[in-house]
């Protein structure tokens, strides 16, 4: 009879500082952070709905793997999309946020993670990061992601990068357009401006996204249903939002 032995399985993030731990994906179980995140997302959604006139057009599909792809021009964008979803869907969303902006210091990392359900995406080494996600996606549990294919609030045109990786990995793409957030919390402003109208439009889910020209279709959807501050004619393909302080 073999002798039963203790088998230890330390968590892989023991040596990571708090900001890095908050940014990791897949997340490690954490009773305190998981509870705080559950409270935080409800709090943020309620606060947003109380402060803004909120319009939601369309609905998210009930599918296990969904990649929400939205235009991005404000810090309010993530909170607005989360607030537009029912709690059942909201809890399964993971938001990809810039590591260099949100996950290098504990305070912004806590805010992004607890209120916005964000994890870190490394824009600095994008190719290596895309390879990492391409290896990771087939191994993880079903889930929803929210990404901003433009990669920055100051850029309008979507990049193929992570959007393409998700599409090729079998995620259903949900085109999502935001209007009003750029005026409600413009780039360069320290505080938001309450009592404005914010509209979130969910498009038709694209289940065979790998077969589509995602950047072109997303931009067309955003131009039709969202409000792209600084955008000229679609065929002009503006790349940068006019400079703001």
């Amino acid at each position, binding site marked *: 009879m073999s002798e039963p032995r203790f088998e*230890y*399985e*330390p968590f892989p993030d023991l*040596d990571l*500082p708090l900001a890095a731990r908050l940014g990791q994906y897949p997340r490690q*179980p954490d*009773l*305190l952070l998981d509870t705080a995140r559950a409270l935080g997302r409800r709090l943020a959604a309620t606060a947003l709905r109380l402060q803004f006139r909120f319009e939601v057009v369309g609905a998210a599909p009930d599918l296990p793997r969904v990649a929400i792809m939205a235009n991005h021009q404000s810090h309010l964008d993530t909170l607005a999309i989360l607030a537009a979803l029912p709690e059942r869907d909201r809890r399964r969303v993971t938001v990809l946020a810039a590591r260099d902006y949100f996950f290098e210091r504990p305070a912004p990392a806590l805010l992004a993670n607890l209120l916005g359900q964000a994890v870190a995406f490394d824009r600095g080494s994008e190719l290596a990061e895309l390879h990492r996600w391409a290896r990771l996606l087939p191994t993880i549990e079903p889930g929803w992601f929210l990404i901003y294919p433009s990669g920055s609030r100051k850029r309008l045109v979507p990049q193929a990068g992570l959007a393409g990786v998700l599409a090729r990995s079998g995620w259903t793409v949900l085109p999502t357009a935001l209007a009003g957030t750029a005026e409600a919390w413009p780039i360069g402003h320290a505080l938001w401006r309450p009592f404005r109208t914010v509209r979130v439009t969910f498009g038709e889910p694209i289940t065979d996204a790998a077969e589509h020209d995602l950047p072109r279709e997303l931009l067309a959807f955003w131009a039709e249903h969202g409000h792209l501050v600084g955008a000229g004619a679609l065929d002009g393909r503006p790349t940068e939002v006019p400079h703001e302080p």
Partner: protein
Amino acid sequence: MDIDAILDLGTLSSDPLRLYTLATVVTVIVTTGLLAVLRLPGAWIPLRTWFVILPVALGAMWLGQGAWTLLVAVVSVLAFKEYARVTGLYRETLFVLLAYGAIITQNLFAYLGRYDVFMAIPTWTVLAMALVPIVLRRTEGMLQWFALAIVGAIFYGYFLAHLSYLYGSSTGLGYLLFVLLMTQLNDALQFIYGKAVGRHRWTPLSPNKTVEGSLLAGATIVGLTFLQAPIVFPGVPPWGVLVAGLIITIGGQVGDLTMANVKRNAGVKDFGAVLPGHGGLTDRLNSLMITAPAFAHIMGYLFGGFPS
């Protein structure tokens, strides 16, 4: 309390909190100066961490027993979390929640001075944990998680809660401050002596432990205990003072090695990274897990001074 009252040397010996706070401030200033002169590489990071630990710990004591107990409870919960993450126990949520409950309850009854309940909580904790495999209807790995959960609840709950319990000693805060500061000093001295003159390692559990470091630290701690005796141990005979010093230096090493054993088995270097230059909270608390209960019960049994 104004600054003149704090610095009034005439009444200093009757107020251990004031005495030890001033002594700590002086020690920190002298150590900082020494490090600035000697330019020892790698010494600044742990010292900077002490600049945070000491004001938090002493500040909580100045605020009163409630603040101190709250600090001990919160730090114990967070340190247990480290232990659970190192061993993998953290994946067993029910055991973890029971251990958290034990830690909080243990400190609550230490604060209330209810010795009877304080001593009974470990029994109820083990009984509650025995129910987990039955409730979950699982056997696989359960003996391991049950054992690890009990060790965790005892070390991080029952043992560390003696720090809360010591605050209520009828002899004042001298006992608590003595245990807290001398245990930390014992750790530092073992390391410093070991680095300076240590040649002979004496345990595979911790490669930093040397015969020379341990003996010299022990001698220094016992010497310092006798120096503090008139303030901390009034009325305690010299052999009692010797016992107090030995509890700190031997108990500190036992606690250190016990948690080193956990780390070696799990294959990790530190319990975490929350205290730069030190590791995790457990890496700073491990010695206190033994010295606090050993001191409280041995000195309490021999010389009294605790509510019971």
